[in-house]
């Protein structure tokens, strides 16, 4: 960006006016050549606003497009503006669909996009989808339509099965990446892996950890052997330790590894072989998987731990002692994901062993069982904050928290950019003082000036939202549940958080006044979700009427009364109202 502005200053004929058709001193090729170096889409958006010439130069050179809400724009509009796209990221359903708040068949089907892309972007190489509906037919169509297709990533998608994966494996001759994460898909067996042709050797990323069916190990081993550029391999829990050792011997160049089951009873010789395999992997910086890892087998990892940057223990139910022993070998860890079975003691070990830690996620091992009392508490979080001053991303599920603890935590770690605290029991107060948790989040927003993402929980009054509106000036994403006392809460946020892009609210006492206070704001946001609040159909209709560039969609629950708007989804769109909305989605 800097180099470009320097060039325009030096040039005698730099843009005189926004509508300048005056020939620029740069031939198009030069301008385009320069602009093609821009990789960040935010920069590109800024560039495209300078003048028509720049807008055109930018659109001809853009190769990657990111569409955060698939209904904000239509495939035809994208195709018209950007003729040379090779890489697309598309996100579909509202995030709360991950938690079953969006009924099935809501939409976000990739097929209509693929049809357009097949026509306009035959050289499409990458497709990364999140919360989209993808059918097997779509995957087959994809495999057939794009001969140069290289990378497919599916995260939180639904509607497809391993049959679709078969099509991808069979027909995508240039595939570099196949990344299947956390989808609502049908698993009809591991045969898809055997569909990669015997001469296929281009794979660099393969992630099938979330698939349950066993794959043919021989086919996998052969695949790994011939894909010499394989950097990321995440297998599923059907792969045993013994098999893992063979894979590691074939792929010592791996940078990211997801192991299979870590439970096997190993002979000393097998242990030694595995340790040796791990120490051979000089580039390994990320490890995940580790299903059913126990203290006998974890030491196999030690030779690789010194260079580990990201350790994902979300599938390994470790206790505090096991974690402590493991982390003692991981001084360079930057990111750690664990289950709360490690308890506060385990988190103390995190604090003492991993001073460089930047990201911590603690997931509840048994989130839906109301009888569970163990897990992590405020002490564990405080202990981490004392030792890991560079923390910037935290996701923390706990069953108790105090205002004082959070205040201490953010004092220790003022650089938080993402602070997601989930106190599991809805509306639970500070467990020592019985007060609302307002001051906790007040401390967060006051101290962490770089905060971009915040999820709040616990017993919260409007005061929390006053704080957020007043202090969280860089906040982009806010998630609220079971909180607030009145419309004022939401009004404060909408009025104060100038950079807000995504606001998702459930089960809060915010009504029409709150909804309508954001009238002008929603166009600068990606989306608003409100469910189980006090918004009525009339309020939504008013919003829709006043703001034609917004899509205001309501989903009603079966048994609620007519005037209540149970689930409201508001988003800006240049594509107009949805044409594929199912009957239960009302566009107002």
């Amino acid at each position, binding site marked *: 960006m800097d180099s470009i502005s320097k060039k325009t200053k030096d040039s005698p004929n730099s843009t005189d006016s926004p509508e300048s058709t005056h020939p620029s001193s740069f031939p198009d090729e030069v301008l385009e050549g320069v602009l093609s170096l821009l990789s960040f889409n935010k920069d590109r958006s800024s560039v495209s606003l300078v003048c028509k010439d720049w807008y055109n130069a930018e659109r001809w050179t853009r190769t990657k497009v990111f569409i955060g809400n698939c209904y904000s724009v239509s495939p035809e509009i994208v195709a018209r503006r950007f003729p040379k796209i090779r890489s697309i990221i598309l996100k579909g359903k509202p995030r709360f669909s991950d938690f079953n708040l969006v009924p099935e068949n809501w939409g976000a089907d990739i097929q209509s996009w693929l049809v357009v892309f097949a026509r306009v972007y035959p050289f499409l190489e990458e497709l990364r989808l999140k919360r989209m509906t993808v059918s097997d037919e779509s995957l087959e169509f994809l495999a057939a339509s794009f001969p140069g297709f290289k990378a497919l990533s599916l995260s939180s998608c639904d509607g497809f099965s391993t049959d679709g994966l078969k099509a991808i494996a069979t027909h995508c001759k240039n595939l570099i990446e196949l990344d299947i994460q956390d989808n609502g898909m049908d698993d009809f067996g591991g045969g898809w892996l055997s569909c990669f042709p015997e001469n296929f050797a281009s794979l660099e990323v393969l992630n099938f950890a979330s698939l349950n069916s066993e794959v043919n190990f021989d086919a996998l081993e052969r695949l790994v052997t011939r894909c010499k550029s394989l950097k990321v391999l995440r297998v599923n829990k059907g792969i045993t330790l013994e098999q893992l050792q063979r894979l590691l011997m074939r792929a010592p160049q791996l940078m990211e590894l997801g192991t299979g089951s870590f439970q096997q009873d190993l002979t000393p010789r097998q242990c030694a072989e595995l340790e040796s395999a791990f120490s051979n992997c000089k580039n390994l910086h990320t490890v995940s998987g580790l299903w059913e890892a126990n203290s006998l087998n974890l030491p196999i990892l030690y030779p690789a731990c010194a260079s580990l940057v990201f350790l994902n223990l979300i599938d390994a139910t470790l206790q505090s002692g096991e974690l402590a022993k493991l982390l003692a070998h991981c001084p360079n860890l930057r990111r750690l994901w664990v289950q709360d079975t490690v308890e506060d003691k385990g988190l103390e070990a995190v604090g003492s062993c991993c001073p460089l830690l930047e990201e911590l996620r603690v997931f509840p091992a048994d989130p839906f069982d109301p009888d569970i009392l163990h897990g992590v508490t405020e002490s564990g979080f405080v202990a981490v904050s004392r030792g890991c001053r560079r923390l910037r991303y935290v996701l923390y599920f706990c069953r108790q928290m105090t205002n004082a603890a959070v205040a201490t935590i953010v004092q220790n770690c003022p650089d938080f950019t993402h602070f997601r605290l989930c106190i599991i029991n809805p509306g639970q107060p500070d467990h020592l003082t019985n007060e609302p948790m307002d001051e906790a989040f007040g401390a967060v927003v006051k101290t962490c000036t770089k905060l971009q993402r915040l999820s709040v929980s616990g017993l919260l009054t409007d005061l929390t939202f006053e704080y957020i509106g007043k202090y969280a000036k860089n906040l982009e994403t806010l998630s609220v549940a079971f909180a607030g006392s009145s419309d004022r809460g939401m009004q404060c946020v909408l009025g104060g958080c100038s950079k807000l892009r995504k606001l998702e609210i459930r089960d809060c006492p915010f009504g029409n006044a709150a909804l309508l206070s954001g009238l002008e704001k929603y166009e600068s946001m990606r989306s608003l979700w409100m469910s*189980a609040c006090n918004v009525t159909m009339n309020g939504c209709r008013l919003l829709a009427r006043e703001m034609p560039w917004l899509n205001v969609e309501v989903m009603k629950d079966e048994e609620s009364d007519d005037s209540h708007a149970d689930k409201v989804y508001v988003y800006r769109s240049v594509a107009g109202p949805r044409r594929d909305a199912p009957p239960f989605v009302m566009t107002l």
Partner: protein
Amino acid sequence: MSVPLEHDYIGLSETSSMERSSDKTSSSSSSTLTSEYENNNVLNLKETELRLGLPGSESPERKGGLGMSLFGKDLEDEPDGYLLSHLKNFVSGAKRGFSDAIDGSEKWALTMNGGSEVDLAKGAVLFSPRCGNNLLEKNNTHKSCLAGPAMKDAGVPSPQKPIEEKKTSPSNDNSSAPAAKAQVVGWPPIRSFRKNTMVTNLSKNSDIPDEKSGSGCIYVKVSMDGAPYLRKVDLKTYCNYAELSSALEKMFSCFTIGQCGSHGLPAREGLSESRLMDLLHGSEYVLTYEDKDGDWMLVGDVPWEMFTGSCSRLRIMKGSEAIGLAPRAMEKCKNRN
């Protein structure tokens, strides 16, 4: 810890549960609720409580709402057509011991106490989706919630939230009924696939944090189509399918595992097709389990050890639903052999 309670449950006899119920009915709030309920047809949360009376004990009259006197004779009096007809199907479709229980006008069930509330709450979450929301669907403007107000201190005035996916509470966010620990749709915000993974992990490590997996208990949840709450059993306490079958029979009083259980399964490699058909046609209910792969399998195909090692939960399914399982069970048998 809930461990002692769960042990009691497995060998639960009528007397012990009656003791528990009398403990609870003696608590003031519970009896208040009972009388409030009887007196008052107005929509309120207490009506939607799921409570079951013990054999011989008074079960509160239910008028409208989600009356869950599951096995009680007052079923016939209820006006709620759909709900009741479904319950009646459940009632009449069951075999053997169950109809005995009915005839004696004995209402077999358990009142809520701390332990059962756990199962109840868990059951609600797992129960409604599995049973296709049949029982809860017609709970019109009631919010079905499984709060046991008698059981826990209110403490937190958080809103009552419905279990069933289709319901949200429009306006009663600050209702007076204490929250206890009612389960809420989509809360905590964890993806459900991850829940399954964790449940699988935990069923190996549960209750004995420091021991290796496999040497402790193997508690698995048992759900029954049509029952309002789930139970938990420790598979380690049984040695074969027969024991499991009879324990479950006692627990649910009305289900059968068919020939499977009664013959045990010494060295069988799998169930032949004809036996499967016998099983399915001979009984209204079929016992199935979810294995580590997340597949639903017919119980009885594999040796007991293999079963306990791979079972993560049990479900007593209606025979008609289980028909779809049979071909897959056969396939898996064939694949394994």
